[in-house]
């Protein structure tokens, strides 16, 4: 625990960035190396204020770029310290090479990724193109849908990342602006309780352990590269168990329950959407309304954990629905969206084979409203009742101009 305690109220009013900053502070991070970028700037800016006011015992390094920020985190992590950083969008894109280094070297790092669209055109608002850019980087990727969840997920990320069976970096995602700049009630832990929950940092092969000199970042060729990547994949796949255990421990401490796949209204749903981020919160409102007003039974399913992908849990959650719309908030670049691909992959070997469509929505921070979601639910309801996809597989939702849809269903 830091020497100087911060007295927090039982309920604080924090936006998602402040939630991250406070989780960083309470986790007693040794080194934060960062470079500012909207909308994640405040995560580190608030933390620097804590640091300047004596609330942080660790170090803060202001680097010359995001590539350098993650490189510094990897170096400090290899040296044997607890490390974290935050970024968004272009910053993440510049950082991407080092993301693979961190996971391949098995260095625990916590990265608060405040999701923002990737340029061009330049855009500071929230979509999931940066989140999707990290898909194959070998990081655990967890998604928070509100400031409270951002606090909870970022705090838990340290525990997951540093677990001896995992030792992999973790991304704590949240939506840019919709979550990062929306102040809501957040119930924090006391410093002492949070610090105890995260626990002491466990050094593994630390460079600063002179009793066991070690080289990190070695070269492997065809003779053992594959075995190392296999070991890394196995640790990432196995991290689901640690994530579930951490969620369970956190529930015991706070009463707040998290699952690797979150859902709402799915138990009695005929149709469902699958989405990430704050859209889950909007969907809960829209689902209640349309059930009451029009008698349509809709559910929403959201992977809380994006990596490792909870394929079995996603399939299990969609066994009673007849139509599913996978909502991807990222320009798909010449194919279907990531969620469509992965959810379809989860369903193809399951008993239930619902109609699956792909909706591209909300690019560059375009709002997804309750009314917009209700329109999607009506289309799903009609497809379900007709027993077929009436349009094409992929549709762009909420874009001005002539309608855009792609990929015909076979035999149509």
């Amino acid at each position, binding site marked *: 625990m830091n020497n100087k305690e911060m007295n927090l109220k039982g309920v604080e009013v924090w936006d998602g960035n402040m939630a991250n900053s406070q989780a960083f502070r309470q986790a007693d991070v040794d080194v934060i190396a960062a470079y500012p970028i909207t909308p994640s700037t405040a995560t580190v800016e608030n933390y620097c204020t804590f640091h300047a006011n004596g609330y942080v015992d660790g170090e803060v390094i202001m680097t010359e770029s995001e590539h350098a920020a993650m490189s510094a985190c990897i170096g400090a992590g290899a040296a044997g310290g607890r490390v974290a950083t935050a970024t968004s969008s272009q910053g993440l894109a510049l950082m991407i090479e080092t993301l693979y280094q961190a996971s*391949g*070297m*098995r*260095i625990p790092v916590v990265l608060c990724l405040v999701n923002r669209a990737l340029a061009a055109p330049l855009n500071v608002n929230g979509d999931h193109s940066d989140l999707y850019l990290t898909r194959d980087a070998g990081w655990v990727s967890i998604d928070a849908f509100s400031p409270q969840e951002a606090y909870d997920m970022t705090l838990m990320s340290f525990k997951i990342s540093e677990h001896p069976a995992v*030792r992999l970096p973790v991304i704590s995602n949240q939506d840019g602006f919709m979550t990062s700049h929306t102040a809501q009630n957040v119930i924090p832990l006391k410093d002492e309780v949070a610090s105890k929950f995260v626990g002491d940092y466990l050094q*593994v*092969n630390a460079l600063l352990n*002179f*009793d*066991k*000199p*070690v*080289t*990190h*970042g*070695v070269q*492997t060729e065809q*003779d*053992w590269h*594959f*075995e*190392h990547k*296999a*070991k*890394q994949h*196995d*640790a990432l796949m196995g991290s689901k168990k640690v994530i579930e255990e951490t969620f369970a421990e956190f529930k015991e401490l706070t009463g707040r329950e998290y699952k690797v796949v979150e859902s709402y209204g799915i138990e009695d749903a005929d149709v469902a959407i699958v989405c990430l981020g704050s859209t889950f919160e909007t969907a809960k409102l829209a689902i209640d309304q349309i059930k009451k007003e029009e008698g349509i039974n809709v559910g929403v399913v959201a992977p809380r954990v994006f990596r490792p992908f909870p394929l079995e849990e996603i399939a299990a959650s969609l066994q009673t629905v007849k139509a599913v719309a996978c909502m991807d908030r990222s320009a798909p670049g010449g194919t279907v969206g990531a969620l469509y691909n992965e959810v379809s992959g989860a369903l193809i070997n399951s008993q239930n084979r619902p109609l699956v469509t792909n909706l591209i929505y909300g690019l560059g921070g375009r709002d997804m409203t309750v009314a917009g979601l209700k329109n999607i639910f009506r289309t799903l309801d009609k497809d379900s009742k007709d027993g077929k996809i009436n349009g094409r597989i992929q549709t762009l939702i909420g874009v001005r101009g002539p309608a855009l849809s792609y990929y015909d269903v076979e035999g149509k």
Partner: protein
Amino acid sequence: MSNKPISEMGWDELVPGAALYTFQGDVDYNITEMQPEDRLYSETSSKAMSVGDWRVIKPVWNSETCIDCQNCWIFCPDTSIIARNKEMKGVDYDHCKGCGLCVSVCPTNPKSLLMFNEYETVEDALTQWPEKKKKGE
């Protein structure tokens, strides 16, 4: 880590993150007082790997003209100059990559380290050593 060579290990036997230990076991003794040849380097240490075949030209050392100034020992980027008690002993041809820095920093006249083709023997090279240059030459 087991005692198998790395090339025979399965994924489950490897150290996570491909971290490589430099020495066998823990260094719970004063390693600074031991010469490199007495230290227990691990099989995965680069000390155990010969990279001499990366070289196409090699430095040859002439003990007749060497003044043991240690310039080459200081400048060698691969710690391939072997010196003991501030006396030059020779070149570690398992790790020297033939960069020639040692030759460029050698202050004697004629130089006590010169580059020769890799295929020439040290004995032949020493017979071709140049004479001392005269002033103004």
